[in-house]
């Protein structure tokens, strides 16, 4: 089986790997939409969706009931509904861009995963930890930012192509908001990479190396960056919320004042693509946060993964690495939802004030502070 796989041409191998990753990401994104409904329900004191079931699962004692109570079949029913609904095309839209926008939303969201390592395995031959990643390239975080920020085009396109005032306002807001928070986000990770790239070594922007530098021995070496640079983590977190258009920064959507924002004119499967994209973006954003600040696949601070899985078979070690990483990312997605159902939305001018007058100076000051601090530490 393995030999058969290794005999395939490289591009087929890559395509297979990519497909597998997409087949994991999209269900996670779908499950997130269900989790969103459940978390909102629990926070509001409701049981949430728990009625739909399919007969042959309902017959399984206990487990079938559990799945039904969890609302798993609502997710399937919703998905099926989206696929089979009539494809409505409003008469006043620009057809080409109207159809393009949901695709533009989904493609960058799924592309960023290419450079995000989502686990690690122990290579017995070289006695080193290797990343489980689609393309282990050195641009890493830069590619995440570059491709991830393309998703704003989908909102602008959707807003503009809908040829209707509320979507248009949503699109305008999206562009302004994403541009303002992009800056703080990029600035907030600079100290991390200053710390990772010790002078004399090869410069790297790879996310794998970030995790590696959180798995060093010693007090400072094993410390997750969230403890080492809490301010960076905070700025990155706030910017991440704004970048993924999550409450309290969901200006482009803000259903209270803009009907549905950029997706007002969308329905059925196209609409659901926007949401799959949003959740995929959120999943990958949480993944990047976990890698940068929460030690990636290291189970606990000061407990690196490599010695734990060194003796295990390669697939088991790899699965443990992926499992730890996924668990952390999912916990982080829960934080996204928890915050969404806690905070009201900021007003648009507040969003701009926070972005330009608070967060950006904070990020710049933060970079200067850590640059100086790292210089002092490296010199001594």
């Amino acid at each position: 089986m393995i030999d058969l796989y290794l005999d395939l041409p490289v591009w087929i191998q890559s395509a297979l790997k990519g497909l597998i990753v997409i087949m994991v990401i999209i269900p996670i994104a779908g499950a997130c939409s269900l989790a969103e409904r459940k978390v909102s329900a629990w926070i509001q004191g409701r049981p949430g969706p728990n009625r739909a079931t399919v007969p042959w699962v309902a017959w399984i004692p206990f487990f079938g009931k559990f799945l039904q109570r969890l609302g798993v079949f609502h997710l399937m029913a919703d998905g099926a509904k989206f696929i089979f609904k009539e494809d409505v095309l409003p008469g006043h839209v620009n057809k080409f861009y109207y159809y393009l926008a949901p695709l533009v939303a989904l493609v960058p969201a799924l592309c960023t995963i290419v450079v995000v390592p989502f686990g690690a395995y122990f290579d017995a031959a070289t006695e080193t930890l290797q990343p489980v990643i689609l393309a282990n390239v050195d641009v890493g975080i830069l590619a995440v930012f570059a491709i991830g920020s393309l998703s704003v085009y989908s909102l602008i396109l959707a807003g503009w192509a809908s040829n209707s005032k509320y979507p248009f306002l949503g699109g305008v807001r999206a562009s302004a908001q994403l541009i303002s928070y992009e800056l703080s986000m990029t600035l907030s990770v600079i100290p991390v990479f200053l710390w990772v790239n010790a002078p004399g070594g090869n410069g790297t922007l790879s996310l794998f190396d970030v995790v590696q530098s959180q798995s060093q021995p010693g007090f400072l070496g094993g410390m997750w960056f969230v403890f080492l640079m809490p301010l960076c983590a905070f700025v990155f977190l706030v910017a991440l919320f704004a970048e993924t258009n999550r409450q309290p920064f969901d200006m482009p959507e803000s259903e209270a004042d803009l009907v549905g924002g950029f997706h007002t004119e969308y329905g059925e499967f196209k609409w659901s693509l926007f949401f799959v994209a949003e959740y995929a973006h959120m999943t990958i954003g949480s993944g990047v946060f976990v890698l940068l600040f929460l030690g990636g696949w290291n189970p606990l601070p000061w407990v690196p993964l490599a010695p734990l899985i060194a003796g295990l078979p390669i697939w088991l070690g790899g699965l443990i690495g992926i499992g730890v990483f996924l668990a952390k990312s999912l916990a982080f997605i829960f934080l996204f939802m928890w915050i969404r159902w806690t905070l009201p939305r900021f007003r648009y001018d507040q969003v701009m004030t926070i972005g330009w007058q608070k967060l950006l100076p904070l990020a710049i000051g933060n970079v200067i502070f850590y640059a100086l601090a790292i210089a002092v530490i490296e010199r001594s």
Partner: protein
Amino acid sequence: MSFKTVERKPLTFAERTYVPQILSGLKTTLRHMVKPKETLEYPETRPIIPDGYRGVPTLVKDPHGREKCVSCQLCEFVCPPKAIRIKPGEISAESDQAHVEKAPEEFDIDMLRCIYCGLCQEVCPEEAIWLQNVFSMSGYTREEMVNDKTRLYELGGTLPDDHFKWDKKKAAEEAGNAAH
């Protein structure tokens, strides 16, 4: 001086960052998340109906199985939306209830008109019409939504009676003061 100047404090730095408020908000929502749920899962679990609830109006019988309504039509006249229609009838002379004289021949309450005000129950001198705890009335046709006499007695059932007024009257009529 009869008033006191309250110092209005400017927001502290921590408050202006929103962070402490956000954290306390998160604490609140987390508490709600683990709390027992507030909602009922309706058709399976039913709400507890409080005493004196005004549900669907019904006709009741006394514990001896006598229909209490004497078709005085007070409820029909008091009914603000005119939901009640009564056709009075006579009780036949052979019946052992003949001294009550009247009973409704037909008694219809149109639930599409009824506003659940409870005036009929309030006005009834015989305590024969009661708004009980059925709160959900539905049907597919207009005809189905009109409760006729049989249906009203089905819904109403029997309620306890402290007086047995008509039994006492009959006893008094037959035996005079010796009845006591």
